[in-house]
């Protein structure tokens, strides 16, 4: 009877664990794990992004109420910087093994711009390159550690590609529309994030350790911070980029 009860408890626990795993589709999030969070501040005068002349592409142009601009420096209303790729550069134990990638990462070409503008992916994870515009785009990846490629997408379609080696960053571009640029960070682990509309980022599920965190911006370069985490604690690492 006691044995049965123990088994029941174990069963419930297994179920609960399975449920927990199911409810957290994020592969990176090891149960418990530590979190590094922070904000990317921006100081100085906000630069103006170049305007895009989309007159050759009326279908794209129609998607904007005003004149669209490039997204080289996106400063949020709260004075923070978006599109900063923040990732664990070093510090993971040598034995660390990344989980199997769950699902694809999608890059969309919509309105003759890339969405998102900055993104991360695991080595071996599928990048689904979607053309929602239905006009000719070519998507060229200009990696150095990864083999570059250049494929044509003249219609609404999705092409899939994977990346074999860690590389921060692989530039992506369209040559039909010289203003279209995106940046892809390829990593052997899921500990990365991109600063969003409030300038914040959060890297979850880290094993205990001391990490070098790098923040990368396409115009302002990189900054690093060293953060030590233990257990399931949350530590803060803020970055600040200044106008050049």
């Amino acid at each position, binding site marked *: 009877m006691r044995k049965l009860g123990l088994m029941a408890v174990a069963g419930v626990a297994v179920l609960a664990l399975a449920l927990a795993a199911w409810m957290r589709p994020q592969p990176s999030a090891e149960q418990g794990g530590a979190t590094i969070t922070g904000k990317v501040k921006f100081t100085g005068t906000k630069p103006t992004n170049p305007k895009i002349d989309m007159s050759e592409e009326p279908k794209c142009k129609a998607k904007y109420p005003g004149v669209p601009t490039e997204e080289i420096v996106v400063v949020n209303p709260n004075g923070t910087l978006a599109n900063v790729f923040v990732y664990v550069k070093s510090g993971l134990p040598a034995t660390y093994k990344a989980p199997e990638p769950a699902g694809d990462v999608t890059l969309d070409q919509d309105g003759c711009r890339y969405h998102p503008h900055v993104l991360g992916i695991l080595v071996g994870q599928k990048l689904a390159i979607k053309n929602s515009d239905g006009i000719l785009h070519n998507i060229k990846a200009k990696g150095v550690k990864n083999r570059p*490629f*250049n494929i044509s997408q*003249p219609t609404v*379609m999705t092409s899939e590609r994977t990346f074999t080696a860690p590389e921060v960053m692989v530039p992506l571009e369209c040559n*039909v529309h010289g203003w279209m640029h995106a940046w892809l960070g390829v990593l052997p682990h899921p500990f990365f994030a991109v600063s969003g509309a409030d300038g914040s980022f959060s890297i979850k599920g880290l094993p205990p350790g001391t990490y070098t965190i790098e923040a990368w911006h396409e115009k302002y370069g990189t900054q690093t911070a060293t953060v030590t985490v233990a257990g399931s604690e949350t530590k803060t690492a803020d970055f600040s980029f200044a106008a050049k």
Partner: protein
Amino acid sequence: MTARSSAFVIGVLLAVGSIPLPSPLSLAAQDTTAGKKVYVKWCAGCHGETGAGDGPAAGAMLPRPRNFTGALYKIRSTASGQLPTDADLMRAIDEGLPGSAMPAWKGRLSDAERRNVAAYLKTFSSFFADTSQHVVPLKFSSAPGGGSGAAAIKEGRQFYDSIGCRKCHGDQGRGDGPSAPTLKDDAGFPISAADLHQNWRFRGAGEVEDIYHRLRTGLDGTPMPSFSDLIDQKFLTDEQLWRLAQYIRSLSPAKPPEVRDVIHAPQIAGKPPASPDDSAWGRVDRYWFPLVGQVIRKARWFAPAVSGVWVQAVHDGKTLALRVSWDDRTQSPDTAWLGFEQRLMQTVTSDDSAPPKAELWPDQLAVQFPRHLTDGMERPYFLMGAATDPVYQWRWTSQPRHAVAGLARGIDQFDTLPEAPTVQAVFDHGEWRVVLTRALATPDTGNEVQLEAGRAIPVAFFAWDGSSGEHGSRMALSTWYFLALDRPTPPGVFISPALAMLVTLGLGLVVVRRAQRRGAGGGRSGV
């Protein structure tokens, strides 16, 4: 080394080169140490000691020599992003890359030397040593039935439009599409969308099959993408891609143009056509003259935009009409191309005293003659004459749109003469068509060439593309060729033989009659 021993070594090398190797396509067994020697001697001048495409001569080249360190190759049989096969590398070395400075090495280097150097090239990039890289040629289908008939080409043209080729290559395929001024290669150098009317300059050769292969593989390192995903996803059928290749092939002449030294200008009955689009030009033979960059005098120019001119000529015994047409992506000056021009100036080595700046220059054409025709072979200096021996030139500019005549006394001095040729010019989707007309005989016999029928009239051509920063000594030029104004065949040519035949026939008849008469008379006398 004695002459005998070196002869022996050469003999061995030749013998080794001619022995069939166990796996003719693999370079794995090649000697990279020997390959390095060949590389340093023959390749490093352009491609650089470290293979980074930055040899001493690289700066003057556009397209730049291949940078081997990234293992990115334009002409492959593999999918975009994949390494080339050994056979792909050998093909580039053996046959060269038309339209670039890369020559064909077959016949210049032995088989062993070429194979060794190809193996050495692979050592410049770690990708070739990476066993996880799968180098598998794409499975290419063979050309579908239906051939290259009008229907197939028409269908190909529909795909040219629907899949957006025109964005870079332009409506008529001369590399003048709206995205063309923004194009850069992966190293950031300016790059031109191919002029699809000059298939003899396609890097990977210009027959239908070559074009189809390039559509499937793309040209890695350039903006030209691969279209294989479209077939995989059934947006296009393989056959449709072949039709597109057939359409592209149809834009170029059936055979690469041959250079013929003498332009024959037939004499026609009516007035010579003054308009470039007069249908009469369709009945006149056209001649191709290749142009090269002016690299003799400062400022030298290594990246001429105009690769050659097509020339036609007719006359009516009083007036000459000369039609010159050439491919030029831009109707200069064109502000849309200023950025491209700036990048071009920064990329191509110049020997100007100050770094050149992008400016709005017009397009130009010069047609050059000597002032006088002589019976001998001596001609003025082909590069615009000399102070003591000027040449007579027609110069046309796109802005202001006019032509003048004058005397060039070397590259820097041009003195306009009062009488100008008449001119009509048309710019049409990346092509200039210009007709210059002038009286054969003019009053100013001291300065203006007198165009006489039946004489070999020396003629040379110069062209400038303003949007490529070409002006002054930055130009494309030809050597001297000849213009011959053909005389109509005199009626005597046709009448004399007939007369001669009639006379012969008449005389023959007389002789026969006389002989018959004599024979008849003799018979009688003998009875």
